[in-house]
């Protein structure tokens, strides 16, 4: 690895650590939580926060992961293995009620009337009127229950005020002006809280350089071509069998293959006369 890359890496990490230290100055440890998907970004993020905790001699805040019901088994394995290795008491969040209603089977229909009170109320909140919906990554209702509601419940029950996220500016054009700290007002969908993204200034290339430089663990799916890992049914590999870091990161969009493209594609398809 070149001298420039190593020097850049030192700067990037130092900046991230500054953000983390600032966070710990402003928020009580017990009111912080770290989100971890098992992906390359959130693993890097977790690693940096851990370092600061060691340096400051403070315990690591609660680490949480959300099981949306459609995870790659490789990611689940990775989370289990690394949480053991790093001695992390990982909290798994999941909308079990919803999984029960579809027998955890992707594609199965969920009848709204079978869901528990909280879930039904949440569907009313998003003005969902149908009697059922399919359990799949693309389903808006399903997504709301499996992801948003689960996170909200956690925030409420744990009284968490600060969430560590692993967003990066270069992931979306719209993120160019993003700040490290974003405050979320109490909305009709979630309680008031703040989110901090310590690795905001890392690019996709920086993440991989950092991973290799410090020998960080990563999910084996990245080695066989996946650049971005979300729900299994909405993630596609970029170039099959070429490791993520060897692909054309600068010219081919990272998430070509994820839900972010879906809205755009749907809109164009509508204008082409479909749907």
């Amino acid at each position, binding site marked *: 690895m070149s001298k420039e890359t190593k020097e850049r890496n030192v700067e990037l990490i130092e900046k991230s650590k500054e953000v983390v230290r600032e966070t710990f100055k402003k928020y009580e440890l017990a009111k912080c939580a770290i989100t971890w998907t098992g992906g390359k970004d959130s693993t890097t993020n977790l690693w940096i926060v851990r370092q600061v905790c060691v340096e400051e001699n403070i315990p690591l805040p609660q680490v949480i992961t959300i099981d949306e019901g459609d995870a790659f088994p490789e990611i689940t394995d990775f989370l289990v293995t690394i949480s053991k290795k790093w001695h992390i008491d990982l909290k798994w969040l999941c909308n079990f009620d919803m999984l029960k209603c579809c027998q955890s089977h992707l594609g199965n229909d969920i009848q709204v009337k079978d869901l528990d009170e909280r879930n039904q109320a949440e569907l009313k909140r998003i003005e969902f009127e149908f009697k059922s919906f399919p359990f799949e990554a693309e389903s808006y209702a399903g997504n709301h229950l499996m992801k948003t509601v689960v996170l909200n419940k956690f925030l409420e029950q744990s009284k968490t005020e600060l969430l560590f996220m692993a967003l990066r500016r270069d992931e979306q054009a719209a993120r160019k002006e993003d700040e490290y700290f974003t405050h979320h007002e109490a909305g009709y969908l979630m309680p008031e809280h703040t989110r901090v993204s310590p690795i905001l200034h890392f690019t996709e290339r920086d993440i991989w350089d950092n991973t290799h430089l410090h020998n960080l663990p990563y999910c084996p799916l990245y080695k066989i071509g996946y650049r971005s890992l979300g729900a299994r049914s909405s993630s596609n590999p970029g170039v099959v069998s070429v490791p993520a870091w060897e692909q054309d990161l600068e010219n081919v*969009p990272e998430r*070509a*293959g994820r839900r972010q*493209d879906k809205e*755009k594609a749907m809109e164009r398809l509508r204008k082409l006369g479909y749907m």
Partner: protein
Amino acid sequence: MLTIDTLRKDVLGCYGNKNNLTPFLDSLQPKCIKFTNAQSTGPYTQASFPGILTSSYYLEYGRQKKCSPKRTLVSEVLKKSGITTAAFHSNPYLCGYFGWNRGWDIFYDSMQDEVSDKIPYIKGDGINHKVDQWLSSYSKNNNYSPFFLWTHYMDVHEPYIPTREYLNKVDPSINLSEDEMLNLFKEVILKRDVSDKKTVKLLKKLYDAGVRETDNYVKEFFKILEKYGVLKDSVVIITNDHGDEFDEHNGLSHDGKMYSELISSPLIIYFNDRTQGKTCDNLVSNIDISPTILYLFGLEPLGAFKGHSFLPLEKYPQKGVFGEAINKTSNQEKETDKPIYFYQENDLKIIYREADQSWEMYNLNEDPQELNNLINISDKSKDMKKKIMSQIKQITI
């Protein structure tokens, strides 16, 4: 490979059209093998492209909207063999999100670029520009490896809003604004309203102008290949994914129907060193395209591919062709829509619709317009029913 979305076979001069809509494509004929009996595997993009790029049928892996990871794309096979693979297109159904970006060294699906409000795709000149950019840098290296370049044009597809220059070439008397053309799209095409025959004729003229415009983009494409010195070492396969209906069977656009206006494909293979055009009457399917590409690169046939290389022509096995799609009957596919299938052998084509378990059979030689349903009269019906059912059983999971 050059694929042109929604291009009907019968608009090409080399297939008999008298309106001079494709002068450039026609001019290529002395260097081409022209297939007169090529059929698509499906009447719309999602149903047809699995055939073209993966040599498999649309519903083989369930009713997925995406390209199943179980399919093998021709790009994946070529890439493994050290051939550079590049794709340039603007069809949202074939974008990275739907899983079609596998195996491509370069995959431009235009999702990262802005498109106009009325025309939701990058036009042929924009696509050509991307091809030009890529080839310009790729060919600078004198020892570049062989490449497979797939380019796809959307300019024939609805909403029919052709550029004025080409509308004038087709019918200068048509004086519609872009908004008026868009309105026709919304009020007539989307509603599949064939009640006014004059309007349908007008739509066909707009469509024809799109064809004329696309022919020019093809011309520019060949110029680019020539500019970078690659045309002389290239074979170019030109075809469509499906056609478009103009009230041949009481509808418009391209729904889940298996009639010739949607399924019959133009298929031309250009060889730079040919001096005499050739016509081939073999009944072939777009499922044979990927195997042909492997053959042209000197690669072994792939077991996962269902088709068979067209080339060499004499070795092509005589067999029936099959296709399947979801029988959507409006512009919106509903969850309750069921499959529709076709099977063709020689001149006979049988169609089966699962929704009402109905059958149709046509003799394409005597009844090319597919108006006389022979299913209850022909003594070949029983045999054809057996054959299509065996295809369906083989394929559906």
